[in-house]
């Protein structure tokens, strides 16, 4: 560890740290910056983070100056303030000041720093500002170079993290152009660039003109698109998810998320949602309520021999749901026919972020449920159903079967098996062939609408939080499971009681 001073305050940091990182980590000073990023290599381009270092004649860029023992860093002198003012003035010369139509407004570093450090008026009297053409960088990103501060975070991210040089720097000097040459930016992490851009020069087409960022409610939650469990903010407005942004967690996803996870929110307010509880008994389709159906399920299960009832859930569920599911199947109904997946999910990392396992909670299943029932071997239940050995089959989240490599075929087979069962129950938030084939269909909640915990591939238990409120008509899956279990065990108690009465009557 190295001991040094920031504005007179003693600070300790590991050897090799740069001044800005050490100062920020110790919360000793707030140094403004554009090009610095903790996950990228130091570049020293923006000159916004200049600080005074005792003994050095020139101001030093704190992002490229390593700390040394006894170093005295000054961030609050008039000289530093003047340098910040000068650099910001240079930036604003050619900046279009189109904040009212810029997506970045509200979370723009140039805006914040201008407010905090810049002079209040412009001295630029020399004609038109530098202009570039708008440019389409591919299906994901859109470039407005006029707003650019030339920090090259975008190019450096592609180069250092993704290993892709489609986005590059062209021309030089005052005409420097950050652009593509033909090949669009299509890598699977490209939308991180829009986030990295400290201004609105590179914007996500998905979020373009969707909302002002200060209207968004940020919910700290977890991405459920694969087993990595990236930490995210789900940002919503008017009970509608508007975008997903990464939340820093060095142990899981560092500063990034993949584009698939980032864009995987549209189903929440999409038209594929299961809206209402439906019963399709003897060819008659009737809309009903989850309460009604749950009572009927409990009733039915109470009447069915336990080895003719089957239960299937997928690792789409939270730990709490898996716990309740196991209690219902193993303890209350006490059937051997229950499983946590049709087939075992794939395992292993796909790249630095994504996992081959597309289910968010396989690890939770292994922790809470795998020792019981059929584990991930749900196909045995399907086989039983196909051979007519089941009267009742309760399915949670059958749509997620599609996430297996041969998911479409599995899903078709599952839907086919349902028709062989007298009463099939599907609890799901998205429509699927299975939900279409179900006798009773109960709407579920998406991960954006419920609280719970999940275990990621590393075995870390992380919280998902409710970002938007669900329809009041929907009962959360966990509550539904509890209702059924409770109803069944109460009935069991009653019967046990009655039996006891009879027995005591017989003895007397």
């Amino acid at each position, binding site marked *: 560890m190295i001991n040094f001073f920031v504005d007179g305050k003693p600070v300790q940091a590991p050897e090799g740290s740069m001044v800005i990182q050490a100062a920020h980590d110790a919360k000793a000073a707030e140094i403004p910056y554009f090009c610095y990023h903790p996950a990228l290599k130091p570049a020293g381009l923006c000159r916004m983070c200049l600080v005074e270092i005792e003994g050095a004649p020139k101001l030093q860029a704190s992002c490229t100056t390593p700390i040394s023992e006894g170093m005295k860093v000054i961030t609050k002198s008039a000289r530093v303030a003047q340098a910040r003012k000068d650099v910001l003035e*240079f930036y604003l010369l050619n900046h279009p000041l189109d904040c009212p139509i810029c997506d970045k407004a509200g979370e723009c570093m140039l805006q914040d720093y201008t407010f905090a450090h810049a002079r209040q008026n412009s001295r630029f009297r020399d*004609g038109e500002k530098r202009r570039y053409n708008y440019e389409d960088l591919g299906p994901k990103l859109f470039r407005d170079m006029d707003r650019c501060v030339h920090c090259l975070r975008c190019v450096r991210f592609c180069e250092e993290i993704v290993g892709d040089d489609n986005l590059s*720097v*062209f021309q*030089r000097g005052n005409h420097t152009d950050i652009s593509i040459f033909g090949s669009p930016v299509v890598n699977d992490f490209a939308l991180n660039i829009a986030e990295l851009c400290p201004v609105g020069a590179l914007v996500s087409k998905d979020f373009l003109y969707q909302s002002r960022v200060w209207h968004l409610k940020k919910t700290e939650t977890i991405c459920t698109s694969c087993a990595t469990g990236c930490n995210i903010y789900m940002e919503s407005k008017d009970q509608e998810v508007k975008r997903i942004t990464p939340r820093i967690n060095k142990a899981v996803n560092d500063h990034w998320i993949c584009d698939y996870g980032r864009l995987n929110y549209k189903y929440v307010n999409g038209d594929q949602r299961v809206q209402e509880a439906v019963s399709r008994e003897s060819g008659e389709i009737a809309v009903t309520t989850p309460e009604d159906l749950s009572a009927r399920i409990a009733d039915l299960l109470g009447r069915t021999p336990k080895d003719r009832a089957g239960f299937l859930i997928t690792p789409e569920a939270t730990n709490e749901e898996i716990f309740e599911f196991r209690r219902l199947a193993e303890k209350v109904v006490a059937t051997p026919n229950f499983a946590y997946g049709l087939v075992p999910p794939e395992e292993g990392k796909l790249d630095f972020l994504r996992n081959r396992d597309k289910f968010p909670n396989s690890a939770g299943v292994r922790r809470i449920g795998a020792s019981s029932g059929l584990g991930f071997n749900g196909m045995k239940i399907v086989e039983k159903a196909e051979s007519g050995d089941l009267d009742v089959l309760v399915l949670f989240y059958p749509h997620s079967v599609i996430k297996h490599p041969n998911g479409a075929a599995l899903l078709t087979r599952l839907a086919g098996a349902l028709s062989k069962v007298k009463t099939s129950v599907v609890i799901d938030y998205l429509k699927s062939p299975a939900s279409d084939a179900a006798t009773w269909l109960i709407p579920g909640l998406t991960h954006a609408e419920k609280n719970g915990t999940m275990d990621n591939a590393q075995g870390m238990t992380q919280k998902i939080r409710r970002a938007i409120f669900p329809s009041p008509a929907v009962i959360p899956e966990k509550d539904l499971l509890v209702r059924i279990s409770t109803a069944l065990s109460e009935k069991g108690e009653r019967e046990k009681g009655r039996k006891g009465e009879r027995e005591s009557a017989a003895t007397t």
Partner: protein
Amino acid sequence: MKKLLVAPHGVPETAYRPSPETEKRIMAHVAKYPTKMAATIPVLHEIQNEVGYISREGAAYAAAVTETSVTHIYSVATFYSMFHLEPIGKFHVQVCTNTSCALNGAKDLVRHCGRKFGISAGDTSTDRNITLTEVECLASCGSGPCVQINRDYYEFMTPEKLDGVLDSLLAGRRPEGPRPTAHIELTPDRVVYKDIENDIVSLDRYRQTGGYAGLKKALGMKPEDIANEVDASGIRGLGGAGFPTGKKWKFLPKNYTGPIYLCINADEGEPGTFKDREILRRLPHRLIEGVVIAGYAIRATEAYVYIRGEFYEPYEVLQKAVDEARAAGLVGKNILGSGFSMDLKLHTGAGAYICGEETALLESLEGKRGEPRIKPPFPAVKGLFGCPTIINNVETIAQVPAIVERGAAWYRKRGTEKSPGTRVFCVSGHVVKPGLYELPNGTPMRDLIFDWCGGLRPGRTLKAVIPGGSSMPVLTADMAMRATMCNESLMEVGKSYTGSGGVIVMDDSTCMVGFLARLIKFYEHESCGQCTPCREGSAWARKILYRIEAGGGRADDIETLRSIARGIDGNTICALGEATAWPMASFLRNFEAEFAAHIEQQACPFKNAPSPSSSSFPQPSSSFPRKRESSLPRDDLDARLRGHDDLNSCRK
């Protein structure tokens, strides 16, 4: 190679195949460097030579042979101003309009060419015969104005002399005839330019005059002793920064066993400086000898000479000399039987002043955009291809053979205590006899200008002198007369330095606002664009200066310019920031009254009448603030703005 020949959007290109000779040269370039990417610039030169420009097919081919991507090729090609992305004319007429040439009427030449060809600068004639461009410094300041046509330099040009040349171009022929170059004064005590009058380009001639004696002696010494001797001589880098050479050599890590590189900076391009070109083309063996000695002293495994792309002839001369030296066992394996091996390779730039900055030079040599690196790590620790590297200027290295042969004490007899030795002063601008003068450090500037260079032209008086290349602070006539040519004296009289030794002399007809505007345009053009103050500040300052010169000055402009200079100075990655800020600050410091006069009169006092129509200069935008203090009608001001940076118009 085939799989990479795919163009953007996945459309297969019609594959480009170079001719067998070109392909052979390209393959030689690719084999020359430790990484294939490093061959990017030479390969692009070869393709441009053959095709005339960097075509898409050519870029795809270059990407394939250098194992990079088309994006990389275009990223690099657009950085360097010598690469054309579109076809240009058969003859590329490039008129240097930088300061020294401009002082001697370069703008007249541009106008003259424009009239002759019926095109304006930046255009190509409809028959694709001629392309006319204004270019930045060609390192021919003492023989300016200089015009480069394809590979050839035409110096000391006037409209009349140029006529003959242009006529043959119009007829589609390459112009013939003698091409005089800078005057070299045969001063009595020369170290670098010794025997230059005896045509010692060939190895035999060079040996007859005692050449390679220094190398023989050096190979008998211990490498540390050579470094100590050079250190004791007190020689400082002559490229501009003036860092003690011996000290620099000693920065290399001790007990390091991997490759060590020596790079020679022949990217001469600082306006006012033209000494290295003459060393390359007239004293190649002195440079080679110096390189081998320096390489031996630092135990280098390989040496590269980075020559600016415009120097075709010097490149060929030096390449021939290197081949000759290699055949004679002076370069390559086991040099002169000493057991020391070092290869010497030449590398061309492609038109970027910034590549004279040592770390930008390394980036460029690695086949990338010439963007300076963050220091530390310094090149002596982590330089070319990640290995320890020493970078020295051509003239510095050319001094080394004599220092080693005759000893530090002999060398120190020249010059001053703190600045020993001689150096080549490149005098350009308004003197009777511009040229190269190798004189001891500490020579009074009065002697240099008035005795050696014959003083100013008749009827003119001295107004200002830039003592060390355009990046150094300017001196007034009074300061100049008190100064001697060494850092200590220049610092004392006018906070200036000897820099690269380029002395630009201005007489009383020079408009200092116009001069500074032209200079700052150069720095704007040559900024790499990496860091903010230089990229934005230089462009803004240029706009303000153009406006002041055109008669649109505002009362607060001087203060604004000062604050721009302050905002750039010291706040950038490389020294190009200072190179922009120092001239600005010093012109404002020493000639503030002239700036004030421009603003007060709303006109340039040095121009009687604007000549709007004949200038072909790219025009700054016409939108001025509405509340302009100027009483000039808008059109008039715009017209004047178009006629700016003509440093010679006062003499018309």
